[in-house]
């Protein structure tokens, strides 16, 4: 569905200096999967999403949607995409409803459909009573819910969510997870970034780990844990990984205060980013 080939992004910093935010990244996103981009702060996740949504151009490399580049098929591709940015970007002069209405018009929706869809999504996000509020008057979490609602109005086929559950309370976070799973069931492709590794572990079919602009590994959450070792022996602040339970237990018995547990995606993430090792 989306092919990302040797994509590089350099930003001009001061004068003639450049910062390489994304460094020769190649991967693909399949139709109807939930794909997670994981990485530490400044790894390049947002920059990758911005290139995938056509907001900025890669310095080098190519991006294909069903074999077509953005330039070949710009408006058709844009119509398929829904984008939930990392930061709030509403029109501050407008109300909740007007912001959604603006979006629906930008995507050329008919009036009746616009109205129905706005009502439906405001209900789903529990924002119905704020319909006529100026967006400035919403709480942080409400704004984030509204961002998601807005991205869904035109029924996109691919949705990009840049840290969708930041600053949301646990109930709402659950709701967003359910929504994402529901969308995926209905044939929508989802690309998300997150710092909550647990979120990626529960939701994603596949994840890519980005570190300092480079894609260092790509796998399913289970696949990642299996290739590192399904069992973790944890003692004090050291971790050792084993493929079978027996050797894990044996190793644990030789260490003080140690315990054996299942490896989590978080272990893989830390192992790959912090200690810079490769699988």
């Amino acid at each position, binding site marked *: 569905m989306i092919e990302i080939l040797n994509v590089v992004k350099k*930003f*001009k910093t001061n004068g003639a200096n450049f910062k390489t935010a994304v460094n020769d990244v190649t991967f693909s996103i399949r139709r109807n999967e939930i794909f997670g981009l994981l990485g530490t702060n400044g790894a390049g996740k947002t920059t990758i999403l*911005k290139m995938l*949504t*056509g*907001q*900025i*151009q890669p310095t080098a490399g190519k991006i294909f949607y069903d074999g077509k580049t953005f330039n070949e098929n*710009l*408006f*058709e591709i*844009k*119509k398929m*995409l829904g*984008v939930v*940015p990392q*930061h*709030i*970007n*509403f*029109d*501050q002069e407008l109300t909740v409803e007007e912001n959604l209405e*603006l*979006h629906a018009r*930008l*995507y*050329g929706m008919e009036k009746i459909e616009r109205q129905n869809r706005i009502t439906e999504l405001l209900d789903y996000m529990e924002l119905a009573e704020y319909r006529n509020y100026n967006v400035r008057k919403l709480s942080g979490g409400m704004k984030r819910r509204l961002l998601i609602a807005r991205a869904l109005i035109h029924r996109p086929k691919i949705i990009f969510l840049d840290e969708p559950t930041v600053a949301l309370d646990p109930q709402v976070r659950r709701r967003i997870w359910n929504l994402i799973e529901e969308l995926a069931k209905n044939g929508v492709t989802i690309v998300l970034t997150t710092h909550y590794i647990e979120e990626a572990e529960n939701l994603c079919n596949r994840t890519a780990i980005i570190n300092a602009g480079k894609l260092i590994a790509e796998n399913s959450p289970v696949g990642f844990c299996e290739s590192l070792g399904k069992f973790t022996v944890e003692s004090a602040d050291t971790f050792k990984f084993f493929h079978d339970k027996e050797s894990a237990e044996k190793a644990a018995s030789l260490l003080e205060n140690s315990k054996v547990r299942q490896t989590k995606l978080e272990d893989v993430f830390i192992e790959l980013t912090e200690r810079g090792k490769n699988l």
Partner: protein
Amino acid sequence: MVAPLLYLTAFGWGLGRSVQLQSGTYLDFIVPGIMALNSMNIGFHSIISVHAERVYHKSLEEYLISPIDPKSFLTGKILGAVLKGLISSVIIILTALIFGANLTLSAELFFVLALNTVIFAEVGFYAAMRLATYEEMAQVNTYILLPMSFMCGTFFSTATLPEGLRFFINCLPLTHASQLLRSLTVGGSILFDSLLILAIFAALGFFLSLKALKKCQED
């Protein structure tokens, strides 16, 4: 909108009625100048809210992500500025008439006013796409627009200026807007050279603004 009305009152009504030039009163002389500088200011100021939309609210992203042609977006913003420019021009004209100015009104006059608004809306748009801070936007006003509003044949004729300075001032669009408007308000013909120069500025401004819009998220 307040400043041009004050100029009109102080220099035009207060001072201008008693000062006689060969061609009529000083009031008649400065009314087209004030129309020119007013259409410039309205053009610039009614579009620069896109700076906040780009830098602070980031709401510009919504348009850049959506399947909207950037050309349409830019055109819409410019037309919005032109509408405001024309409304305020009508107010200036009415005020001037109340003060007793002699003005010939024509469709060409309004066309030139609209064209001048377009040019400075584009200047504002381009600046809004390229400059990082609001302070820098204010500097465009202080160091470019404000000097132009006094020097470009608005309050006095450029004919008496030293050669080098006059050449420089003749390269600026506002000079041509003032000259065109002055010729039209006294019932003269349209100055084709000046019109061509304004058209070139407008086309160039559109091209540069569009380019800046497409690249505005790159840094």
